[in-house]
C-alpha cells in the first residue's frame, strides 16, 4: 500500500496515471478529503489528492464566469467572488472546506438547486486527466456552447470514474440586494402537506430555495418542535419585500430566520451518519415526505429534509443497527403512491411512452453514505448497462479511477468489502 500522493501540477497527475496504468494500480481520487465516506466502497492502492492543485485561473467579473483548479475550496471561491459582488451557484452537501472539483465530480447539490439547477447546469468547461493518462480540455469558458460531443456533461457527476478533474469553468450569479429566509410550520401528513404546497404555489412568490425540514433539525435551528418549511427569497429589495408581504398575507405563522440559518442547516450532516435521497414525481412529494418521516421515527436519531422544487427527500441517520436502517429505508424506496387516473388531457400513449403510470409511482433511491451491505439492496448500480460500461471502457478501460465507487461490476461492492482490507476504502 502506497502513501498518499499529493499532486501539484496537471503534468504530474498525468504521469501518475500513466504509471498507474503501467503497473495496474487502482487509484482513489480525493479533493480536500471531506467526503471520502460517500459512494460505495472502493478498492484502491494509492490515494491521489488534488488539494494542492488549487487557485483561480481566470476570473472576469463582467462575464460572470470563473475558471479554477479543481482543488480550490469553496471557501476560497466564495471569498474571491464575494469581493466582486458575485457568488458561485453551487450548494453541495458539506462545508466550504470542500473542493469545487469534488462538487462537480459528485454532482452534489442542495437547497439552492431550486434556483440554480444542479452542477450539470452550472459547469461550462472541464479539464481532466482520463484513465489512460490522456489530458483533455472539454467545453469552454463561454455560457453557450454546443461544439462537439458533450464531455462536460458526462464528466460531471461521474464520481471520478471517467477522468480526474483538474480545472472547472463555472457560471456565476450576482449577489442579490436582499437575501432573506422565512420559516413556517408544516403538517407531515401527505394530504395536508399537499394542500399547503398547493397554497404556496398559488402565491405571487418565487423562492430561491424551499426546503422542508423535520423536527430534529428544526429544533436544532430553534424553529420549534415540528416540521417547518424554510423559504429563501433572493432579489431586489422591491421584489423581495413584495413577496414577503404576499407570503404573510397568504400563509400564517411565518417567522424570519437568522442569517446563519443555512450554515446551521448543513451542520446537521454529522460525521458517522448515513445519508440517502429519494425522489419521485414532484406531485408525489407529500407522500414521499410522509413515508420518510415514518422511517425517521422508526430509526430514532435522524432528520429529513426535502427540496420542494426538485421533488427530492433526503434523510440523514445515525444507526447502530444497520439492519433496521436498511429495513426502514427499503420501505420508503418501495413506496407505491396510489396511482391517480390519467389526467384528462392525455391523448394516447404508445408502447414506448415515458409517461406510464408505473413510472409515476416509482421512487428512485440514490445513496450518498450507506453501510456497505445496504448498497446492493437499496441502490442497484446504475452504471452496469451497456452504454455506461462502454463509456467507462472508453475513458478508463483498466478501471483505475475510483474503482467500485458507482458499483461498476469490476469493483463489485460485496466482493470489495470482503477482499479490500487495508486499502483506501470507505474507512
Amino acid at each position: 500500500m502506497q502513501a498518499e500522493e499529493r499532486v501539484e501540477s496537471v503534468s504530474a497527475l498525468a504521469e501518475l496515471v500513466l504509471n498507474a496504468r503501467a503497473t495496474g494500480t487502482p487509484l482513489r481520487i480525493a479533493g480536500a478529503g471531506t467526503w471520502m465516506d460517500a459512494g460505495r466502497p472502493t478498492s484502491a492502492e494509492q490515494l491521489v489528492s488534488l488539494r494542492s492543485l488549487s487557485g483561480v485561473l481566470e476570473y472576469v467579473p463582467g462575464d460572470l464566469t470563473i475558471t479554477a483548479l479543481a482543488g480550490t475550496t469553496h471557501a476560497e471561491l466564495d471569498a474571491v467572488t464575494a469581493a466582486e459582488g458575485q457568488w458561485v451557484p453551487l450548494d453541495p452537501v458539506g462545508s466550504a472546506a470542500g473542493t469545487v472539483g469534488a462538487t462537480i465530480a459528485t454532482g452534489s447539490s442542495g437547497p439552492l438547486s431550486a434556483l440554480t439547477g444542479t452542477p450539470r447546469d452550472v459547469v461550462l468547461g472541464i479539464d481532466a486527466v482520463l484513465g489512460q493518462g490522456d489530458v483533455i480540455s472539454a467545453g469552454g469558458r463561454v455560457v453557450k456552447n454546443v461544439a462537439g460531443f458533450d464531455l462536460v456533461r458526462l464528466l460531471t457527476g461521474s464520481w471520478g470514474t471517467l477522468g480526474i478533474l483538474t480545472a472547472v469553468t463555472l457560471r456565476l450569479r450576482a449577489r442579490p440586494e436582499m437575501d432573506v429566509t422565512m420559516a413556517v410550520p408544516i403538517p407531515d401528513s401527505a394530504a395536508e402537506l399537499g394542500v399547503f404546497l398547493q397554497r404556496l404555489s398559488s402565491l405571487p412568490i418565487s423562492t430561491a430555495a424551499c426546503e422542508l425540514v423535520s423536527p430534529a433539525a428544526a429544533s436544532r435551528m430553534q424553529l420549534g418542535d415540528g416540521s417547518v418549511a424554510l423559504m429563501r427569497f433572493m432579489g431586489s429589495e422591491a421584489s423581495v419585500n413584495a413577496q414577503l408581504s404576499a407570503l404573510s398575507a397568504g400563509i400564517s405563522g411565518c417567522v424570519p430566520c437568522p442569517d446563519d440559518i443555512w450554515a446551521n442547516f448543513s451542520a446537521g450532516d454529522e460525521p458517522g451518519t448515513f445519508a440517502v435521497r429519494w425522489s419521485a414525481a414532484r406531485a408525489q412529494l407529500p407522500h414521499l415526505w410522509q413515508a420518510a418521516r415514518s422511517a425517521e421515527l422508526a430509526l430514532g436519531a435522524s432528520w429529513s429534509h426535502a427540496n420542494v422544487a426538485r421533488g427530492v427527500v433526503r434523510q440523514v441517520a445515525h444507526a447502530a443497527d444497520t439492519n433496521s436502517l436498511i429495513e426502514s429505508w427499503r420501505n420508503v424506496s418501495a413506496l407505491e403512491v396510489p396511482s391517480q387516473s390519467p389526467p384528462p388531457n392525455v391523448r394516447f400513449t404508445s408502447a414506448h411512452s415515458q409517461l406510464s403510470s408505473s413510472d409515476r409511482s416509482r421512487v428512485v433511491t440514490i445513496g450518498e453514505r450507506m453501510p456497505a451491505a445496504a448498497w446492493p439492496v437499496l441502490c442497484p448500480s446504475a452504471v452496469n448497462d451497456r452504454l455506461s460500461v462502454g463509456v467507462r471502457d472508453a475513458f478508463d478501460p483498466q478501471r483505475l479511477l475510483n474503482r467500485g465507487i458507482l458499483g461498476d461490476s469490476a469493483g463489485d461492492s460485496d466482493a470489495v468489502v470482503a477482499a479490500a482490507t487495508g486499502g483506501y476504502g470507505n474507512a
Partner: protein
Amino acid sequence: MSTSVLPAGTPAHSPLQPAQYERLEGELLLEVAAALGKIVGERWVRSTPSALIAYTSDALPGYSHMPSLLVLPGTPDETVAVVRYLADRKLPFVPRGAGTGLSGGALAEGTVLLGLNRLTRILSVDVENRLAVVEPGVVNAVLGREAARHGLHYAPDPSSQTACTIGGNVAENAGGPHCLKYGVTLNHVAALTAVLPDGSIVQLGNAFAECDGYDLLGAFVGSEGCFGVALEVTVRLTPNPPAIRTLLADFSEVNAAALAVSRIIATGIVPAALEMMDAATIRAVEESIYAAGYPIDAAAVVLVELDGLEAGMEGEVATVASICREAGAREVQVASDPAHRARLWQGRKKAFGAMGRVAPALVVQDAVVPRTRLPAILAAIHETGVRHGVKVCNVFHAGDGNLHPNIPYDATDPEEASRVEAAMSEIMQTCIEAGGTITGEHGVGMDKMKYMPRLFTEDTLDAMCRLRSVFDPERRSNPGKVVPVHSCREWQSAASLRSPRHAG
C-alpha cells in the same frame, strides 16, 4: 450484391462519405428501396433525383449533397424497423428533421436520408408535472401551441421554430433568444427513448425523478444525430411568467449598444432575452415584408425582454432603460401590450429570412464570445468585413455573447465567394482567440468541422470520437459530421486493456 467494407486506406469520396462505405447505387439501391418500401410503404421511399432535390441542402445555402434514398417512417416502430434493416446491411444513414439546420448536419451524399418529420404526434401532456411526451417530428411551435392551451410554454425558441422539429432541436441542443434565462434544449428534456444505430432501444434520463449514474441523456442531446435517433422525447413545460416587459433601445453607434449589453449583464439582472441587430440587418428587415418599424438610421438596436413576478419589474425596467440611455441610446421604447411586444420581436425573428432579399446566398456563423469582449469583437468583425470588401450583417443573442455575423453574397461569383470565405475564417479565429467557441446553437455539422482542431486538442477530439463509438461503433449514424475523421485515432477494444476482474 455485397456491402463489404472497403479496404482501409481507400480515399474517401467526400467528407460525408467515409472510406468504409460504398455509395448506395445500382442494384443495391433498388434492393434497399424495395426492402424499406415494405416497412414504411412504397410511397414513403424516394430514390429519384427529382424527388430528392429538395433534400440536398438544409437552411445553409452553400452546400448541396444528393442522398441516394429518402425513407420516411410514419411511426416509432417503423423507424426502429428501418434502423434495424440498415444495421443488418451495414448501411450508413443521416437522420433529418425539417431541414432547417444551419450547419449542414442533415445532408447525405450517396447514402440514406432518414426523415423523421412524419412522426408528428404529441403523445401526452401531464399538466400537473409539467411534462409532455412528443415524437421527434413535432414542430417546435406546434408544441408551443399545445402547451399554451394549458397555460404553459415550451421555452427553447429558435428563430426557425415555426418549422423546426423537437427531434432536430434535441440533435443540436438548440437555443433561441429565451435561452439566456431559461436554458437550452437540454435543460428542457427530462428523458428520451432512442434507437441506437445497431437497432437497440434505450431509455435515457428519467422524467420523474433524479437519475443515478452517467448523464447519458446529456451526452445524447446535442450529439447531432451521430449517436442514434430519438423516438420519443419527454420535454419539460414552463409556467408562463406573470409579467413581461419588452424594450427596444436604438443607438447611433454599435459600440454604445455593445457596451449597454455588457453593463446590463454585469448588474446581475438576467433578462429573459437580450438581442442585438446592426444597421445592415435592420435595413434588410425594414425593406422586407417583415418590416417591424425599427429606426432605419440606427447603427444598432438592442431588444431586451424582462420577465418574472410583477413585484420588482418596474425597477428592473427602469435600471435597464437607464443603462441604455447612459450608454447613448437615442430612444428606449417599452412595450407592455402583447401586440406591441409581438411587433418588436417580429423584426428580430424574421431577420434571417429578410437576408434572402439582399443576396441569393448567405454565410451564417454562430460563434460565442465572452460578453465583456463584445465591443472589441464587433469592431474587429467590422474591420474584417471592410478589409475583405464584404458586408457583414450582425444579428445575435447579445446576452450570452452568441454572435451571428451573416454575409449575404453571390455564390456564383468565385472571387466574392473566396473573399467571403477568408472573412469568415478570420472572424472565427478572432472569436476563438477571444476565449470563445465556434458554435453556440447551430451545431458543428459539416460546416464547422474545419474549425474543431483550432478549438480542441487532439486528445480532446479523440475522447469525443471514443464517446461516439460507444453509441455508434460502426460510425453509420450521420457519418462524417462533427469531429474530423482524421482526429479519431483507433482505440483498442476495452477487453484487451482491462486488467483481470476481482473474483466474485
